[in-house]
């Protein structure tokens, strides 16, 4: 989640053909990728899709640092090894499905600024839902800044030490508590400033 700001930076500053493509087209492309993931059940087919997505990833000059994000969901895919009774075909199928999905999504987010994505979504989904999605995404950035400060404060007060698990647990919980209070304060300020700017239950994106 810490790499979120880097992802956003890549989406705004990137200049490749993928960055210039219309957000609507990219979302449709993502839906096609999703359709293939859901319907295709053969290893060569999914492998082909993964190669295409990887090629797009490197052609679009998405920073290599972000690539690790596409591998993160594999952590959860390991449970399937036990569910399948160690069937190699099934495990490879699941791993390829996971990699195709995550690479597709990371490509979309690293090449499209989030207001553009929400603007497209706002045309097809209920405004309350898109607004909640937008505010959550925005809040993640606010909280990441608070989290950084909280981590420093925690470090100065002993941080997380495996030798003292109870104290560590209290420190982690106090850190989360501090994050929640700061977050709620920020949300109250956000609501006041939104009301001042004429917010009446709908956010209007640029270009609408």
């Amino acid at each position, binding site marked *: *989640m810490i790499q979120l700001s880097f992802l956003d930076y890549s989406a705004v500053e990137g200049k490749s053909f993928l960055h210039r493509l219309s957000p609507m087209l990219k979302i449709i492309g993502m839906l096609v990728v999703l359709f293939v993931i859901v319907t295709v059940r053969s290893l060569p087919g999914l492998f082909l899709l993964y190669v295409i997505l990887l090629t797009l990833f490197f052609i679009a000059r998405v920073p290599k640092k972000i690539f690790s994000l596409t591998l993160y969901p594999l952590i959860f895919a390991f449970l399937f090894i036990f569910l399948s009774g160690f069937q190699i075909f099934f495990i490879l199928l699941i791993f390829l*499905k*996971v990699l195709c999905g995550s690479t597709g999504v990371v490509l979309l987010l690293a090449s499209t600024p989030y207001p553009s994505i929400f603007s497209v979504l706002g045309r097809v989904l209920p405004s309350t839902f898109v607004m*909640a999605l937008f505010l959550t995404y925005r809040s993640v950035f606010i909280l990441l800044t608070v989290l950084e400060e909280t981590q420093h404060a925690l470090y100065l007060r002993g941080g997380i030490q495996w030798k003292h698990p109870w104290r560590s647990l209290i420190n982690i919980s106090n850190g989360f508590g501090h994050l929640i*209070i700061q977050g709620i304060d920020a949300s109250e300020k956000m609501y006041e400033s939104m009301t001042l700017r004429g917010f009446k239950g709908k956010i209007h994106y640029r270009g609408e």
Partner: protein
Amino acid sequence: MSHIHFPDGVLPVWLWASGFVVAILVGGILLRLTKKEELTRRLPLLGMMAAIMVLGASVEIVPIAYHVNLTVFSGILLGPSLIFLATFVVNVILALFGHGGITVIGLNTLTLSIEGILGYYCFRFFWRVFRRLTPAIFLGTFIALLFSTFAMIGVVSLGTSHYQELIHQEGKGIFEFHLSKEKEEHHPGEAPEEKVNLRRFMAIVLPLGFIGWILEGVITALIARYIYRLRPDLLRLEKEVP
């Protein structure tokens, strides 16, 4: 733990599609019951609590592959109708980062909101019984997590026949690709194929889950204690004190 970390294309279409239909229906009804002014006023808080849930979910406790959800605590702060919308939003964002598939968002919303809504009511109940914050929060969280984990296992078990189909049908599907492998013929009388082992899955999930429920119960209780010291108004308990 109640979050289904299934990627896309694993659960049968009927299952995830019904998850979406039920989630949209429940969400629609709950939003209709919420006053528009109340919703508009609390939307920034909803966004912030959803963001805290997203951050909580990104902190992995590596040895037991567990992450805190903070759904119960968010449910206590937001109330039962807003927590549903919050879990929907959280699942969309988590799915965008590969934390569960995009097609599983509906089912994940249902299981996670069970946690949030049940946690809210359990906490209110135990608060009335004990009049003490720490046991009320701990028990509320523990019970909510227990139920939502079983809801998750229920969802996983509904798709068992589909996993077996996936395991044993190499190369079949809507689109077939035979670039490298000839289709094998199966004759009657061959050794029976190994079945999906749901018991093994439960044997892994439940003990790890149990550690997680206790851990999350303790963390949630400690967070609540910290917040009660600094901002007791957020828990809205004053009006319930006799």
